[in-house]
């Protein structure tokens, strides 16, 4: 089987979790001898040659193709100067905010040039790039007729997937890694929601990264349950990471690591920390990351008078992330809404016991973790206290957690996906 796959980023050049998930999935598919044409807006040249990569920036659009005009017509709703917050990292978020204050101009002109240089980032011209990516998707689908099925990852590539389906008539699989409801809570960005919805409804089948996400798709996007398969994410490497880092403070360390935004529930971590510190002052809490709620969290920590035991590291990268996991005694992910959430699995690889919210997809695959409702700060505090003080449970989690991790393989995910493809093609023919 040959798959035409549309992504937005691919390792090593990634800024979100989407690229990592695509990498794992492609690797799993290769294991099952599936051929993948993988399209990204921008190729850097140092990607691992595991698929037939297509650089959308290299594609020349042939405007004699009449169908393109009608595709463009359907895309005009993308031309909005709206404030979009997809998977932005903190720096990009800042840049994007700066941009959003000014207005955008001349979208049509550059989109209708015959070639277009994508940035492939989540930057200021995101909507313009998404539109152009759709046209490019149509061109690729016309040039390459040798594929059996189309697979698009998240809303950024949904318009490309839809366009490719219109040109080729081949079935489309929409893969949902996160929805606008996860990113923005109830204040969803309408244009993004519209694209997500259009992609889900145009698709022949949907893959969701968790049951949680499947439920969101059913409830919020009006898609019938039978059209959705759950494909949990996996880990690329389940081996235990032996760190050379040593902890330099005598206290135990409890860590939150992630973007400090609404979605990640940082305030519940702060409140739970206060409750733990009231019972045991020999603990340090660390909030690693950056985001729009950072200053509010600092204010709250100061207000609760625990700033000598609650630390902020700012955005961590590279070795510092490993360092942080390695010196942590407990890892907490209190996400309000997490389609999957790979970071607790990283913590498990560092032999760190984890507490995760029930509102996260990863809770569906990880048994050896304490699961609490994100809002239940008492339960979170209890669990933290228990993992810090009752050797038995944390030891058990360490041992069994690593065993569990070994079962989360991308080959298994890919095998499931192949079955999904086969079913779609069987019903089509």
């Amino acid at each position: 089987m040959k798959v035409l796959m549309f992504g937005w980023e691919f390792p090593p050049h990634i800024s979100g979790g989407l690229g990592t998930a695509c990498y794992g999935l492609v690797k799993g598919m290769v294991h099952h001898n599936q051929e993948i044409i993988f399209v990204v807006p921008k190729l850097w040249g140092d990607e691992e040659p595991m698929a037939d990569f297509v650089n959308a920036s290299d594609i020349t659009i042939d405007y004699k193709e009449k169908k393109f005009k009608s595709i463009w017509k359907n895309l005009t709703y993308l031309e909005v100067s709206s404030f979009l917050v997809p998977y932005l990292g903190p720096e990009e978020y800042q840049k994007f905010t700066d941009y959003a204050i000014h207005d955008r101009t001349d979208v049509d002109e550059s989109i209708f040039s015959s070639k277009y240089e994508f940035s492939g980032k989540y930057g200021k011209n995101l909507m313009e790039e998404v539109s152009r990516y759709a046209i490019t998707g149509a061109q690729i689908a016309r040039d390459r007729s040798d594929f059996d099925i189309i697979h698009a990852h998240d809303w950024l590539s949904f318009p490309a997937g839809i366009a490719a389906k219109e040109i080729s008539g081949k079935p489309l699989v929409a893969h949902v890694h996160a929805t606008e409801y996860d990113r923005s809570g109830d204040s969803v960005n309408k244009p993004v929601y519209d694209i997500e919805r259009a992609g889900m409804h145009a698709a022949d089948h949907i893959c969701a990264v968790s049951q949680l996400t499947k439920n969101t798709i059913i409830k919020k996007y009006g898609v019938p349950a039978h059209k959705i398969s759950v494909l949990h994410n996996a880990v690329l490497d389940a081996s235990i990471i032996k760190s050379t880092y040593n902890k330099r403070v005598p206290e135990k360390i409890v860590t939150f690591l992630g973007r400090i935004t609404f979605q990640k529930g940082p305030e519940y971590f702060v409140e739970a920390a206060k409750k733990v510190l009231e019972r045991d002052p020999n603990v340090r809490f660390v909030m690693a990351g950056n985001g729009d709620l950072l200053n509010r969290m600092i204010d709250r920590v100061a207000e609760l008078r625990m700033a000598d035991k609650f630390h902020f590291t700012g955005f961590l990268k590279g070795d510092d992330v490993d360092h942080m996991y390695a010196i942590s005694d407990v890892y907490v992910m209190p996400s309000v809404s997490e389609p999957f959430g790979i970071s607790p699995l990283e913590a498990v690889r560092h032999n760190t016991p984890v507490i995760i919210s029930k509102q996260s997809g990863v809770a569906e695959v990880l048994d050896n973790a304490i699961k609490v409702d994100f809002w239940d700060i008492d339960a979170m505090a209890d669990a933290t206290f228990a993992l810090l003080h009752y050797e038995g449970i944390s030891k058990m989690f360490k041992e069994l957690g690593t065993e569990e991790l070994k079962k989360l393989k991308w080959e298994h995910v890919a095998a499931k996906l192949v079955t999904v493809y086969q079913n779609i093609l069987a019903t089509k023919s």
Partner: protein
Amino acid sequence: MRTICFYFQVHQPFRLKPYRFFDIGDDHHYWDDFSNKSIMRKVAQKCYLPMNALLLELIHKYNGAFKVSFSMSGVFLDQMQAYAPDVLESFQKLVATGNVELLDETYGHSLVALKSKEAFKETVAKHTKKIQELFNGYTPKVFRNTELIYSDEIGAMIAELGYDATLTEGAKHILGWKSPNYMYTNSIDPNLKVLLKNFQLSDDIAFRFGNKTWADYPLTTDKFVKWISAVPQEEEVINLFMDYETFGEHQWAETGIFDFMRHLPDAVLSRTNFRFSTPSEVVANAKAVGKIHVPIPISWADEERDLTAWLGNDLQDEAFDKLYALESLVKECKDSDIKRDWVYLQTSDHFYYMCTKFFSDGDIHSYFSPYDSPYDAFINYMNVLSDFKLRLKEITTAK
């Protein structure tokens, strides 16, 4: 006799280096040696050296008719010794003329007067000793508290230490209809004289001098002499209190600030009935007109002239309280590094950087802050304080 009293504050904090969570328990050196040194050298070139040379010239030229006073924080003195011995030498020359008065203050330029009487006395004694060491046994008679922070109680504490006088802000809300141009006394202990800053005329020089949008720009000695001549004859003393860094650093040489000061003594002495005095001379010659009541602490900062530049928001209060919670442990400890860091950590600037009054006085705050935001300042300070606390506990429990 009518007189002008110049007092210049000389201070540089020991700035903290970026200190990360991962450094806690590992790295015990907190100070940004590079930036502290380079700032000291920069300000030495722009301000301390040229202004000291000018003042020396003027003192000689007017043969004792022109005089000024300085208060130098202990943290400044330490940095001057380490990074700018040439500046120290020029200050020593000035003091040797006998026309320069030195004031005492807290060694660490701290807010300790608000927190602990005992620690306050200790740090003041340390400052006196340092001044004596550096300036040939000179012993100050007048005290100036950090940022001119003053209240009736702080004044009583200063009186207890035997000082003749102290300086503070001539804040509108404590003066009411009264004028700052008289000498007052502390309301608890009338032995302590209180000199009040004339903020209008002081800030004309310190803040507005180079401001081209100011209606009175440019400020010439002519204009200034006209203004002080307009002060009612019975008002005796005009206290011009300001940061020494005004000259050449806050107001660049290009604004003409040095020329203004070069010509001011002549203009004042030849065209008005004002003379120049040091604070001790004011105390000896002027008559106190009454008590000044300051039940709630005032300072010379910002529009409010209160403590909110350093204390009051959660970040500042948390850092301040957590710092002084360590006081008794530090007292037990004999370690000299701990003692030094304890002093440097108390410097008011650390709390100033955490100020969130962006909308009224934020401009001047961000000008003086090495941090991008008050939050960054807070995080960095708390990381350092956490390490300091660990060291302290280790040393005190090891005993």
